[in-house]
């Protein structure tokens, strides 16, 4: 019996270790080694920090890096602000069938590919698009209006794409807040604002944190939306990685960029968790 249990344990442990080892850990180590390598001649390499030197030495790279981070934070904040009232409505105001119907409606757009969603925004926003036509028809614009290829369009796309990942954890945590606790807040003299600040938001904190982390990650690592909706000036860091790998075939520098992106996301995720006293197991598991 004992031996059998041990055998079972190892049988279950093997796939986990193979998966994490061969597809996550070793590839990342390999990528780290690659990023620390410099081509010094044909087929000859030496280990050095040159790639990171290039990254920190070139203002365009640094600028894109910082901009990507800032815009991702901004997208996260906007998503949170839009999603919170909606999640609250679904979790606490709507009841029964309406509640599940609204929740399902929130999920629907995310069953279809991000590409389709982005395509939808292109049809709406571009020069020949629906909004432009509407504006002309209403006499608010004289000629076609280009609303695509700028930061605002990109932001709309990023927020749209990430919405689900904010709404779901928020609805889940808000639903677990007992109505009686909110009533008690009012009963003891609280106003809508103080109940929100002292009771609802503290209770929703785990949902806010996990939603924010996921949305931030998705925005930071997004390639499609900035490429399709963003302008020539709104370069995204993932586009740099792509061009180093696929266009320039400079894998060493691309790997270094990949590591910077990973480093940035880890620092921000870790910082958010520390700041709010949450753990990865609690917010993701």
């Amino acid at each position, binding site marked *: 019996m004992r031996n059998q249990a041990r055998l079972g344990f190892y049988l279950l442990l093997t796939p986990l270790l193979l998966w994490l080892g061969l597809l996550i850990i070793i590839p990342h180590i390999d990528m780290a080694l690659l990023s620390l390598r410099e081509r010094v001649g044909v087929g000859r390499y030496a280990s050095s920090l040159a790639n990171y030197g290039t990254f920190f030495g070139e203002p365009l790279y640094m600028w894109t890096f910082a901009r990507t981070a800032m815009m991702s934070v901004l997208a996260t904040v906007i998503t949170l602000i839009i999603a919170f009232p909606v999640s609250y409505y679904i979790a606490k105001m709507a009841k029964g069938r309406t509640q599940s119907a609204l929740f399902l409606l929130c999920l629907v757009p995310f069953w279809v590919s991000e590409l389709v969603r982005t395509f939808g925004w*292109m049809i709406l926003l571009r020069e020949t698009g629906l909004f432009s036509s509407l504006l002309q028809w209403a006499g608010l614009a004289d000629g076609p209006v280009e609303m695509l290829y700028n930061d605002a369009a990109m932001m709309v796309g990023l927020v749209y794409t990430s919405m689900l990942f904010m709404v779901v954890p928020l609805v889940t945590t808000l639903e677990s807040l007992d109505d009686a606790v909110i009533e008690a807040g009012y009963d003891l003299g609280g106003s809508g604002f103080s109940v929100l600040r002292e009771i609802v938001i503290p209770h929703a904190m785990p949902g806010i944190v996990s939603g924010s982390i996921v949305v931030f990650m998705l925005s930071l690592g997004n390639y499609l939306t900035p490429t399709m909706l963003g302008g020539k000036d709104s370069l995204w860091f993932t586009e740099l990685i792509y061009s180093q790998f696929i266009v320039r075939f400079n894998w060493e520098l691309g790997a270094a960029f990949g590591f910077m992106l990973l480093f940035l996301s880890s620092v921000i995720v870790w910082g958010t968790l520390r700041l709010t006293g949450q753990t990865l197991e609690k917010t993701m598991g």
Partner: protein
Amino acid sequence: MIPSIPQPRLIRTAYGAYIVLFFIYLALPLVVVAAFAFNDSQFPSLPWEGFTWNWFFGDERPMIGVFHERSILRAIGTSAFVGISVALLSVAVGTSNAFLFNRYQFRGRGFLYVLMLLPLVIPGIVLGISILVFSSTVANGLWDGVKYDAEILRPGLVLVILGQFSFITTIATLVISARLQKFDQTLEEAALNLGADRMTAVRTITLPYLMPAMVGAVVVAFLMSFENFNTTLMLVGSDAPLTIAMFDRLKEGSTPLLNAVSLLLMLGSSVLALVMIAFQRKG
């Protein structure tokens, strides 16, 4: 603010209006994509030139419909193959992981659990390039060492499947774990007590209980694979899955053909989602 707290009419109305606006915002891009699939025009934009089915069934230029466009059909086939492979693989490993983390207490369990969650917080594009780098290292090593050209480790479907599998497995694990955690272990003990051996107890009691979660995980994994873009982009070879094929076309300029494909995608995912919900109701 809950229904039992009286609120001024103005605030309630404003709140309701906000919710309506939000759902319009959610629906708008999809409705537009779907509507223009039926526009009898070369461009998915106004003016409306009349209703047509040609972007689905048309078979002569310039309006070749989805069902006669070879490259799109092949891309759908590729995506389906990748999706099914990823779904089966990740649910198999995910189920094994769920049992491991739920049933065994061992040293390093907490550490492994955090490690298991990590793929969720690694940007998809980084997952893609790290696997690309590692597989190339191995392939180059094989070539230098034994002069064997490991075609399988070059960008292509195998790498796409592995790349998607690497993070979808985490999600499958979480979905299945959540249900396994709610499982009352005394049911298994009762089965043992009634004469089943361990494997039989798991097979006849626990797995049927887990079935709704496993089916759910298969559907979720399939859909995630089908719409994955970032990881796939870095690992794709000559056989492009649908999202990549559509992306390439979109860069060259769009025709309502893309709308038609998108509409089919929406219908397909909705059907799958409904199947999953129905299955979960039953479970």
